[in-house]
């Protein structure tokens, strides 16, 4: 009998290759829809927020709100977001998210300046919320914690 067509080995190889290529295409396509969890210290970053301890003070100086922060725990702080508390809202100031000059490590302190304009007056209640940095895959992402330090403007 005359032999025609592909050998079983070649046919199997082609089938396997097609299946692998399809699987890779579907994996790459589906990966775009999955939101990678942001991690810090190999933990979900929102859990790391519980370990943060810091103290803060706020004072007004010629329309500028100066917020000084002292990091009292081992989680480095990347920045802070300042929110104003009122009876019906707790909202970030327009210029409220500020980055420190570098990571603020345990025992370090830094003062950030916020252009508060007429948004803040002496005696107002503020919520200072820490911002930390984690990694999602190879991408660094900042994360604003849910809770923070309540202070009054001096």
């Amino acid at each position, binding site marked *: 009998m005359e032999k025609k067509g592909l050998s079983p080995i070649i046919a199997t190889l082609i089938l396997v290759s097609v299946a692998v290529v399809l699987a890779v295409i579907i994996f790459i396509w589906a990966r*775009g*829809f999955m*939101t990678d969890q942001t991690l810090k210290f190999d933990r979900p970053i929102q859990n790391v927020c519980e370990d943060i301890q810091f103290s803060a003070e706020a004072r007004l100086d010629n329309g500028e709100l100066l917020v000084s922060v002292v990091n009292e725990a081992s989680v480095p702080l*990347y*920045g802070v*977001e300042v*929110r104003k508390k009122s*009876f*019906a*809202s*707790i*909202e*970030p100031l327009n210029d409220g*998210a500020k*980055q420190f000059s570098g990571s603020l490590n345990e025992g370090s302190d830094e003062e950030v300046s916020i252009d508060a304009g007429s948004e803040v007056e002496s005696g107002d209640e503020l919520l200072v*919320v820490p*911002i930390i*940095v984690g990694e999602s895959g190879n*991408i*660094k*992402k*900042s994360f*604003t914690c849910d809770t923070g330090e309540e202070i009054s403007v001096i």
Partner: protein
Amino acid sequence: MNKRGISPIVASVMLILITIAAGLIITQFVIPFVKNNLNRSTECLPFRGYLKFDESLEGNCYTEGKIFIVIKRGNFEKLSLEQGDKAIKDADIAGAQIALSSASETISLKIPSNEIFIKDSTSKESRLPAAGGIVKYETATNTNYNKAQIYVILSNGRVCESPSDEISLTPC
């Protein structure tokens, strides 16, 4: 043997032309069509849980002629870091739709609108909280609605089908 059918050269040329035509059709029509539909089916996903009812500020309750709702807005990255190509921004939503339900009826309110506004705001201000913020709203109604659901309205006007959050309303 009689030669019949098309010559191998013509057959090859036809096959190549058909392949090129198929490629053009796929790149021009099929890929954009699939992309559009994929985008539509996934554009709401990042906003699941983005707007939530919050327990602070003593809200999510009804009293005589009024309902108070407290909404917390999530936030994405506040400070610029290395970002992916499809960075999602807080500006990608235009507002929210709140569905209030009782045993017999359901109504929908939109933020912003003149139906629901920030509590005690002098000019009946109606807007979403700033990213990361919490705001208490009030709306006038004679019905004691006992359930509220909140839906995200995207910047293209689409109201996401799945609620971002829901809560039972209790007497104040």
